[in-house]
C-alpha cells in the first residue's frame, strides 16, 4: 500500500513540521529512511536541487519522493498530503482570527509553547545536518574543506557585512561553485 504510506507519511510531516523548511528536513529524513524510499545520498541530492529551484523545500521533497516511489499520482498524492494539515489548521485559525488575536497574545500556555518550540526546532535542524555527516556524503578530506568553506561564507556576513560577502553567502552560488569544484576534483 505505497499510496497509503505516502499519504500518511507526508500528512504527518505537514502536521508536525514546525519552523519552516530546514526543520521539516529531519522529519522527511526519518520517514524516507524508515521506508527505504531514498538513499542518504539521494536525499542530499534532492535537498541540493531544492536549494537551486524555486519553491518550499517541503513541496520539492514531497513531489520528488512521490514520483520516484509511485510515479505521477504518487507525487500528486504526497504533495497534497503535506499541504492538507496546513489547510485544516490555517483555515481554523482564519475563522477564529479575531478571537485568537485577542485571547492568545498574552496567554502564557500558548506563547511559552511557541517559544520552546523555537528552541526545539534548532535541535531538529542540527540533527538533520548531523545525520547527513556520513562517509557517503563526505568521501574524503576535500569534502570537509568544501563543508568548511561553505559554512564560512554562509556565516561571514554576520560579522563582516558588505556587498561582496553578501553575494558570496548566497546558497545558490555556493552550490554551483561546489558543483564546479566537484566536477574538476572528482572527474
Amino acid at each position, binding site marked *: 500500500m505505497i499510496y497509503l504510506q505516502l499519504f500518511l507519511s507526508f500528512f504527518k510531516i505537514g502536521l508536525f513540521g514546525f519552523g519552516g523548511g530546514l526543520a521539516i528536513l529531519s522529519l522527511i529524513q526519518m520517514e524516507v529512511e524508515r521506508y527505504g524510499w531514498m538513499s542518504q545520498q539521494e536525499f542530499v541530492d534532492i535537498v541540493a536541487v531544492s536549494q537551486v529551484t*524555486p519553491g518550499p523545500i517541503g513541496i520539492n521533497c514531497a513531489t520528488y519522493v512521490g514520483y520516484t516511489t509511485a510515479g505521477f499520482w504518487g507525487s500528486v498524492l504526497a504533495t497534497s498530503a503535506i499541504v492538507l494539515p496546513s489547510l485544516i489548521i490555517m483555515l481554523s485559525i482564519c475563522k477564529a482570527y479575531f478571537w485568537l488575536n485577542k485571547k492568545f497574545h498574552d496567554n*502564557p500556555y500558548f506563547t511559552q509553547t511557541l517559544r520552546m*518550540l523555537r528552541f526545539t526546532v534548532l535541535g531538529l535542524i542540527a540533527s538533520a545536518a548531523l545525520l547527513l555527516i556520513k562517509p557517503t556524503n563526505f568521501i574524503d578530506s576535500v569534502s570537509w574543506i568544501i563543508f568548511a568553506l561553505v559554512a564560512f561564507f554562509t556565516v561571514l556576513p554576520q560579522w563582516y557585512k558588505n556587498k561582496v560577502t553578501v553575494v558570496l553567502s548566497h546558497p545558490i552560488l555556493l552550490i554551483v561553485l561546489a558543483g564546479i569544484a566537484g566536477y574538476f576534483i572528482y572527474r
Partner: protein
Amino acid sequence: MFFQLFWTYLKIGTFTLGGGYAMLPLIQREVVDRKGWIDEEEFLNMIALAQAAPGLIAVNSAIFIGWRIGGWKGVCGAVLGAVLPSFLIILAIAMVFQEWKELPAVEAAFKGIRPAVVALIAAPLFKMAKAAKIGWLTALIPVAAALLIWLGHVNPVWVILATVFCTLVAVDIAERRRK
C-alpha cells in the same frame, strides 16, 4: 478573485529561490504594497500565525491571505499558485534525474555539492539561535533534541510532542503557584 490570487502566487512561487522564508518579502510587496489587499499590521500578524502553525510557511500564508480576500475560491487559487511551480519543476527534474545521475560529470559535481548542502543546513543555526534569544540554559533544549534524534534515533515527532507537553506542564505549575 481565484485567478488574481492564483496568478499572484504563481509569480511569487516561480521567482523565489531558497524556500518559504524567501517568499515573505515578495508576498508583502505584492499583497500589501501593490494590491493593498491587507494592511501592514495584518500582514505581520499573518506571518506570526503562519510560523506558529505547523506546515510550510509559504503555503500557510497563501491559505491565510486567500481566505481573507477570496474565501474558498481564494484559498484554492493561492495554494495552487504557491505549490504548482515547484511541483512542476521538481516533477520534470525527477523524470530525468535518475538517468542524469549516472553521468560521470553529474556524479562528480554532486560529490562536491553534498558536503556543501550539509553546511548550508547547519550554518543558519547560529543566526537562528541568536534570533530566538537563546541562553545557556535554554541551549540545552536544542542540544538534547539533536542528540535524541541523531544518536537515539527518536522520531522528531516525539521530540516536538514532548516539548509541547513539558512546556504546558511547566507553565501550569508556575501559574498555579502564582495564584
